[in-house]
């Protein structure tokens, strides 16, 4: 099998003369930015230098930053990761490697292998409703520049965030989806991010999703890793949800413990739109999800859910931010964590209600179970309310499994292990209930149960893993 070793950072750009992890990428960009641009689209290059400048200024985030205090990237951001700046073909056919293990989901299926969109090779996708465009962001940016230039980077470029800036400098491709006005996708769209490499490897991809007025779409993003090397993915997704549109975003992570998964999801909601986000981490290494939802119209509905099951030394930090800029919208947030062994969880629930966003109702819940004394959870509700006629609440709990409930079950003949499992499963139940794709909900119930039983230690869907 052909390897991609020849594009690793060390051989491409430097030979140990620089110490800082950051500096190697700064130098890499300075030396290779022309090549980076050459292998991307003009629309994506417009803001590239500015993003790089911002990154130079900000650097990679450390836990000293308020927004990153629960994310420890020290170990992740060390050593070397290869990059594929020249867009060499990755020797893998995801359509063969990946067998989706959500039976009956009948999705439109797409792959991003590392940081590049994999050419569509599935007859099922030919039946997309008229006007819907799904494909490689860099390719589509050349075919439909007028469409993409109005949106690309509009949510991400202004973010004072080192990871987002780094992505702006290095991302060359990603997933693009456009659903025109009043078109409703009849089946879910599934995007599988697969990490595949023979050497430690980094991927920066940028996804862009645009829903016109009254459009409707469900996107399921699955993160998988294939090889036993260190992976670092830094992905930014921008989503524009038009008036009256309905968008559901499911993110399901099932990666190995040597993966660092950094993901930023930025959603803009126009009036009367409805957004559901459900961010599920079943198995991982180090994960940071930044989710920011801007409510820029009246009468919006927003439901953001998430769930984490972690053990060993896994780390998951969900940093969420819901911003009510306009009146009369409802948002609800529900995150649940089950942490075992030496795992660490973090949750931030930032809620901003602007002065004009009267009649906002916003509720936030974060509940966590620690299964032993060494697991750690940090949670922080952060409410900033400038309007005076709102209903807002938040609640966070960290606790153990209910011993009285466990004994009650045992006294009915249910063994302790099974009772614990039932309690943990029940605990995560309301997050799973908020999956509106039936086939996915059924599958998640099973996967969560397996995960809690300790039977799911890596991604099941990949042929290579089995």
């Amino acid at each position, binding site marked *: 099998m052909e390897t991609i070793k020849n594009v690793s950072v060390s051989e491409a750009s430097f030979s140990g003369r620089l110490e800082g992890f950051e500096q190697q990428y700064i130098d890499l960009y300075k030396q290779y930015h022309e090549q980076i641009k050459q292998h991307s689209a003009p629309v994506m290059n417009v803001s590239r230098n500015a993003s790089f400048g911002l990154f130079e200024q900000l650097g990679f985030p450390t836990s000293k930053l308020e927004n990153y205090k629960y994310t420890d990237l020290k170990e992740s951001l060390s050593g070397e990761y290869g990059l594929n700046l020249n867009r060499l073909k990755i020797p893998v056919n995801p359509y063969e490697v990946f067998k989706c293990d959500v039976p009956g989901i009948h999705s439109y299926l797409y792959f991003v292998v590392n940081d590049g969109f994999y050419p569509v090779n599935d007859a099922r996708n030919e039946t997309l409703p008229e006007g819907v465009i799904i494909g490689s962001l860099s390719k589509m940016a050349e075919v439909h520049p007028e469409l993409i230039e109005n949106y690309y980077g509009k949510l991400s470029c202004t973010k004072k965030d080192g990871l987002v800036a780094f992505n702006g400098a290095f991302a060359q491709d990603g997933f693009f989806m456009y659903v025109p006005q009043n078109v409703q996708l009849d089946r879910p769209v599934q995007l599988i991010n697969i990490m595949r490499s023979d050497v430690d490897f980094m991927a920066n991809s940028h996804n862009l999703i645009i829903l016109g007025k009254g459009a409707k779409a469900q996107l399921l993003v699955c993160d998988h890793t294939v090889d036993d090397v260190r992976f670092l993915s830094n992905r930014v997704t921008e989503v524009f949800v038009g008036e009256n549109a309905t968008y559901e975003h499911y993110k399901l992570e099932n990666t190995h413990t040597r993966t660092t998964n950094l993901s930023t999801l930025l959603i803009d909601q126009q009036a009367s739109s409805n957004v559901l986000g459900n961010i599920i981490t079943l198995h991982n290494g180090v994960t940071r999800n930044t989710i920011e939802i801007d409510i820029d119209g009246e009468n919006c509905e927003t439901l953001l859910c998430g769930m984490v099951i972690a053990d060993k030394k896994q780390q998951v930090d969900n940093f969420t931010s819901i911003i009510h800029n306009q009146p009369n919208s409802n948002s609800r947030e529900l995150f649940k964590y089950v942490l075992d062994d030496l795992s660490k969880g973090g949750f931030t629930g930032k809620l901003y209600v602007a002065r004009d966003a009267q009649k906002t109702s916003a509720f936030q819940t974060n509940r966590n179970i620690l299964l032993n004394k060494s697991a750690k959870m940090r949670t922080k509700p952060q409410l900033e309310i400038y309007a005076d006629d709102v209903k807002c609440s938040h609640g966070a709990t960290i606790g153990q499994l*209910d*011993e*009285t*409930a466990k*004994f*009650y*079950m*045992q*006294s*009915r*003949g*249910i*063994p*302790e292990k*099974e*009772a614990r499992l*039932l*309690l943990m*499963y*029940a*605990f995560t*139940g*309301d997050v799973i209930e908020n999956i509106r794709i039936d086939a996915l909900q059924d599958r998640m119930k099973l996967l969560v149960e397996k995960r809690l039983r300790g039977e799911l230690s890596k991604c099941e869907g990949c042929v290579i893993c089995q």
Partner: protein
Amino acid sequence: MNTTNNNQSQTLTSPLLERLGEALLTIKNLHANINGKEILKGLDLTVRPGEIHAIMGPNGAGKSTLASVLTGNPAFEVTHGSVTFQGKDLLELAPEQRANEGIFLSFQYPVEIPGVSMVNFMRTAINEQRKYRGLDQISATDFLRLMREKKELVEMDNKLANRSVNEGFSGGEKKRNEIFQMAMLDPSLSILDETDSGLDIDALRIVANGVNKLKRPNNASIVITHYQRLLDYIIPDFVHVLYDGKIVKSGTKDLAFELEERGYDWIKQEVEEAP
């Protein structure tokens, strides 16, 4: 003092002992602590198949502790004595094993378990019991039929069965749900811990009715109660008075009437005056 009381209870029960044969449950000189404090201080009790034993006594006497110890609640520590259930050393068994051997506790305060549906809970319990006894899993149709039958027995609302275990149930519904679970699991020894507390007369009658309908020659019940009222509905073969961690007096159901009339002071006095 100890011997006097033991003799008393033995004279009362020995004719029945011969008639009914082998004991289902034998408790001998049971001592138990919670948080280092001794609650049970040498309790003896024998229960045979077909019998209903009522245990009465003032607050703090150890009635609920007895129920907890018999079902294996980890908060309690047995320091001395033995409990034999159907020939097995009960104290050696985990709570779930005791349950699967046929012991059932109707909790004084049934526990709410949000997110676990009654159906799932009962199906798991039934199948664990069957597994323990070497039987196959129950079929879906048999399970539904069983649920329907037993719900009718305690006149339980269909809606309750579809909800999470005890979540949002009223006090009466919770107690009814305990008897429903008892009917589903068909225990050989059921312990009803203050099942009458918090019940109105109608609910009390329904709950007692359920218990009576489940009575058979080969199973037995221990009914823990404060009040004689419940014993109008569930007629006991024996009434015991538990005081300061021991059974200090045993008798027939007439003893319950006497207690209702005279309170516990005379018993306390008797105990204290005994040599």
